[in-house]
């Protein structure tokens, strides 16, 4: 479903964030990418919808090149790729429902959407998405009136409203407490399973990665240093990825 062909990214200042990544993710897989801050995880995930344009190589989604797509074609491809963010990125002053509906923008009539008019089917879908993430009653609340976990759920609902084939999650739980993190990730995995969505998630923490991933990819310094099943990701492997020892006692996060 997602294919990286020797993808490289060098930022204008000279920083080489990705030094050549080649990777294939089959349909429906739930992949977790781990690594230190600055290892290239955010960059990697943003090349999938071209929010970051690779300086070399290519990224394909569903067999089509995202890297070379322009304007309308790019927007159409992005409409099939949902994304959730560490800081949720909701429009704080708008209602939850409006935030979720804004996920449909890539696929609705451009003129009526500018007036704020959505079809009955779109409205039904938006409410359905809120239902699936567990907060249907919050539809008319203002987005900034919700707790962190609820806001991220709205973010997921927004991405879900796109009816995506691929879901990208950039550190989705880094701002949330441990129990909420587990709740959000398990919801994400359940929905991905139900809809057959190929998912790529960036995470900091080992335990969350091991609990939820079908496949773990470790990155360090812009390169992939590990690619395999969670069972194979032992503490030694993680020490490789992070480049320093992990002390289980000092790890403040436990499994839920």
């Amino acid at each position, binding site marked *: 479903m997602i294919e990286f062909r020797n993808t490289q990214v060098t930022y204008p200042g000279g920083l080489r964030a990705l030094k050549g990544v080649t990777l294939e993710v089959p349909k429906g897989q739930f992949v977790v990418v781990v690594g230190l801050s600055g290892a290239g995880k955010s960059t990697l995930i943003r090349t999938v919808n071209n929010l970051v344009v690779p300086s070399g190589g290519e990224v394909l989604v569903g067999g089509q090149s995202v890297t070379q797509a322009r304007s309308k074609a790019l927007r159409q491809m992005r409409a099939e790729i949902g994304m959730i963010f560490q800081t949720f990125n909701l429009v704080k002053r708008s*209602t939850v429902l409006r935030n979720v509906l804004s996920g*449909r923008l890539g*696929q*609705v*009539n*451009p003129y009526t959407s500018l007036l704020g008019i959505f*079809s*009955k*089917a*779109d*409205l*039904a*879908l938006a*409410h*359905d998405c809120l*239902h699936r993430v567990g907060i*249907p009653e919050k*539809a*008319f609340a203002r987005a900034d009136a919700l707790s962190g976990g609820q806001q991220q759920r709205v973010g997921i609902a927004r991405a879900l409203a796109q*009816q995506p084939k691929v879901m990208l999650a950039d550190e989705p739980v880094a701002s949330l407490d441990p129990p909420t993190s587990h709740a959000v990730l398990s919801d994400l995995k359940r929905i991905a399973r139900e809809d057959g969505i190929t998912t790529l998630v960036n995470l900091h923490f080992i335990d969350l990665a091991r609990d939820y991933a079908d496949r773990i990819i470790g990155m360090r310094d812009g390169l992939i240093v590990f690619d395999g099943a969670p069972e194979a990701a032992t503490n030694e492997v993680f020490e490789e990825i992070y480049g320093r020892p992990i002390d289980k006692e000092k790890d403040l996060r436990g499994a839920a």
Partner: protein
Amino acid sequence: MASRVRTATPVVVPPLPPQARRTKLWQYLLVLAILGITAACLLTLGNVSWERILSGLERNLPPLWRGLTNPDAAIFSRAFAAMMETMYMAVIGTVIAGVLAVPVAFISAANLVGGNRFALPGRGLLAAIRVFPELLFAIIFVAAVGPGAVAGIMALGINSVGFLGKMFSDIIESIDPGPGEALRATGAGPIHTFSYAVVPQVLPEFASNVLYRFEINLRAASILGLVGAGGIGGLLIQRIQFRRWEEIAMILLVIIAFIVIVDVISSSIRRRLV
């Protein structure tokens, strides 16, 4: 582009809660009110003779365009001198206003001398001054003291006292009472408290406001001449009456250049002040 939606289970769309419905109602009413007022204005606006306008456009646009794209360099020195006079008017007006506004502001600030007894009439006076546009003052002053820069400077001065007085008052009312208390606790008298606790806090913001007011006064000063109160406006109104577009274009360029340069310098100083 039709939206393709697959719904797995049919979900009932819940109705809007009463609060949301009320907000929507108010929004519709607002839009309707705006449209209504606009329609009323458009329909009742008399004195608009379209034939006169169209013929006027036909007659005037070509020479206007030609003139605007060929500014006349000959008038540059006169325009420059007139603009300098304009700038001096703006400087004097702003400075006088800055000086006068300070005592008025201190009286009008509720947290200093006298409290609300003086503050309310003080603020009231400042607000009353701010009701009138500077041009109105200029017109009256020209009638009172005759045409020339004096009328213009006075108009700018009084108008600016109104604005600077308000801004200064607001600034004074927003200062931190901490340093003042600290000083009084050591037995410092009112003059010392004033100079060391109040003045340093307000001075940078005062200066910033004075500069901003100067930017505005420079623009205002350039048009005061249109009503006879001195500055480059006088030169301009003559040229406009005779439709000498090439000269008007040069004068406009001089005005714009001055204003843009002053704006840029003033903005960069102000950014570093506050």
